[in-house]
């Protein structure tokens, strides 16, 4: 019983990180109907840049976070201006393919600047554990989960209750109609990318603490956010949260109970098996928008 609860808790922790990354994907999809496939390397970029700020430049944590946010905003403005804007009015598939190009570029960029062995991520969160009965919860993971939930609370409030959030939802539904109402689509897309990259970078920091500074490992983890997006529905912010947590839980349970049966590797496979099942059974996800058609 304790084992189960332990698994569930660690599943929630990692699930929170997946949820944050999934949020980035959902935001970009909401603002521009584009599926951002470059998520894995972007998360890794966050890990590497924060490592660089904290270790190579030896900045204190608050300054490093500010630096990270500035880099994120610069990246997203550059992406919007040079990659996304030329493709307005072109088929969506072209824009999705550009994100694949972005993925390759970012990976190459990281390998160029920081070649070599896996580095160790600095200890920025208080290490230690909390004991609840027989269950051990590392404080790092708890803080990670708290950050994730806080971020989500902020974004859900933003979309439901602010004017800018409403404008973004409108742009996501019908770009041409939004433009006729005076909404600048390029601004909406730039904001979506900024937030998406910031959340990816935060995910990168949290994952770096767990898995070290390694491009391949972090990218692979970043990609697991896709099943989370599909479970929750591509247009739903709340769906990204629930999807992420679910994937984390199921992955954790899989590792705990099935790894011994099949000799390991469950962590990598389970999220994508679930992705396949979801696409077969409920492709719009739990909270995705079914197309409203009136005769």
């Amino acid at each position, binding site marked *: 019983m304790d084992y189960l609860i332990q698994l569930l808790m660690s599943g929630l922790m990692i699930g929170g990180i997946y949820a944050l990354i999934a949020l980035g994907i959902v935001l970009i999809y909401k603002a521009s109907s584009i599926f951002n496939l470059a998520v894995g390397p972007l998360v890794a970029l966050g890990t590497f840049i924060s490592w660089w700020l904290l270790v190579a430049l030896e900045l204190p944590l608050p300054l490093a976070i500010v630096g990270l946010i500035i880099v994120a905003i610069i990246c997203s403005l550059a992406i919007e201006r040079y990659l996304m804007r030329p493709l307005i009015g072109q088929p969506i598939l072209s824009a999705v393919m550009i994100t694949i190009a972005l993925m390759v570029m970012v990976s190459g960029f990281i390998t160029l600047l920081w070649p070599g062995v896996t580095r160790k991520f600095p200890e920025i969160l208080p290490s230690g554990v909390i004991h609840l009965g027989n269950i051990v919860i590392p404080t790092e993971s708890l803080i990670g989960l708290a950050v994730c939930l806080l971020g989500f609370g902020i974004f859900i409030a933003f979309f439901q209750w602010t004017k800018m959030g409403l404008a973004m*939802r409108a742009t996501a*539904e019908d770009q041409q109609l939004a433009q006729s*109402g*005076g909404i600048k689509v390029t601004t909406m897309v730039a904001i979506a990318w900024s937030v998406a990259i910031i959340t990816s970078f935060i995910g990168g920091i949290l994952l770096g603490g767990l898995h070290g500074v390694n491009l391949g490992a972090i990218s692979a983890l970043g990609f697991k956010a896709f099943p989370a997006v599909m479970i929750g529905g591509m247009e739903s912010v709340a769906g990204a949260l629930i999807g992420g947590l679910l994937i984390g839980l199921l992955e954790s349970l899989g590792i705990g109970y099935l790894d011994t049966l099949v000799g390991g590797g469950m962590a990598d496979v389970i999220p994508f098996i679930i992705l396949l099942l979801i696409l077969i059974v409920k492709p719009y996800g739990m909270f995705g928008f079914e197309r409203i058609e009136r005769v």
Partner: protein
Amino acid sequence: MMGLPLKRETQRGEIGCIMLKVNNIEVIYSNVILVLRGVSLEVDDGQIVCILGANGAGKSTTLKAISGLLKTELGEVTHGNIEYDGKQIQNGSPQDIAGMGISQVLEGRRLYPHLTTQENLLVGAYLNNNRADVKKRLDHVYSYFPRLKDLRQSVSGYLSGGEQQMLVMGRSLMARPKIMLLDEPSLGLAPLMVKEIGEIVKTINEEEKVSILLVEQNAKVALSIAEHGYVMENGRVVLDGPADKLKDNEDIREFYLGLGSVGQKKNYRNIKHYKRRKRWLG
């Protein structure tokens, strides 16, 4: 505060204010498809002007050229210009033109189907940064369309056709437009609803002092509320004049209102004959 439009001799031959003047524009889509070949029209301050024509005549394209939405469809005004408030607005960006007081209500009751009625209306007031003013405006729009107030939390995709038409017009009103471009508001609506929408358009024109450029295929309704009308065919304006003159125009009566010369029985041979002859006479 916008400067007042210049007083010039208007199409009615009087001295009045011209709000919008389209001068002989040529519109091409994707650099290859010529849709408008020299269209000129004029909307005076406070007037309702209608554009009639069959499908494919280029009516919607004319509206999109005015509101700037042409850009989003890879279209371009390659010749001529559009004057509004003393400025040239052809090939401008739709957001800027919307900010100048031109509001287009798109064809087919386009709205944001997953947003609620109230959210749809609020998006219309996006350019207005004064919250209290937006709230006042919202209440004002609800006073025009009380049915929308009852439906304000409903998801707008599920509203009936008439309610959706009221919603899209209300959203346009939220932006305090000086001129509204209405694209086929009566499309797909029941006859009673069409009558109601026609009356609403007239009310908006009188009470809000909004000029209206109305594109319609339903010539009867359009000519009953408009003051001036243009008829388009194949990308050109082929006829224009005051609405009451148009209503009595023989060709309009025959082609649009289905009223041939009184007492004449229509059989196929006659129709074939007039189709061959179909030329617009004065």
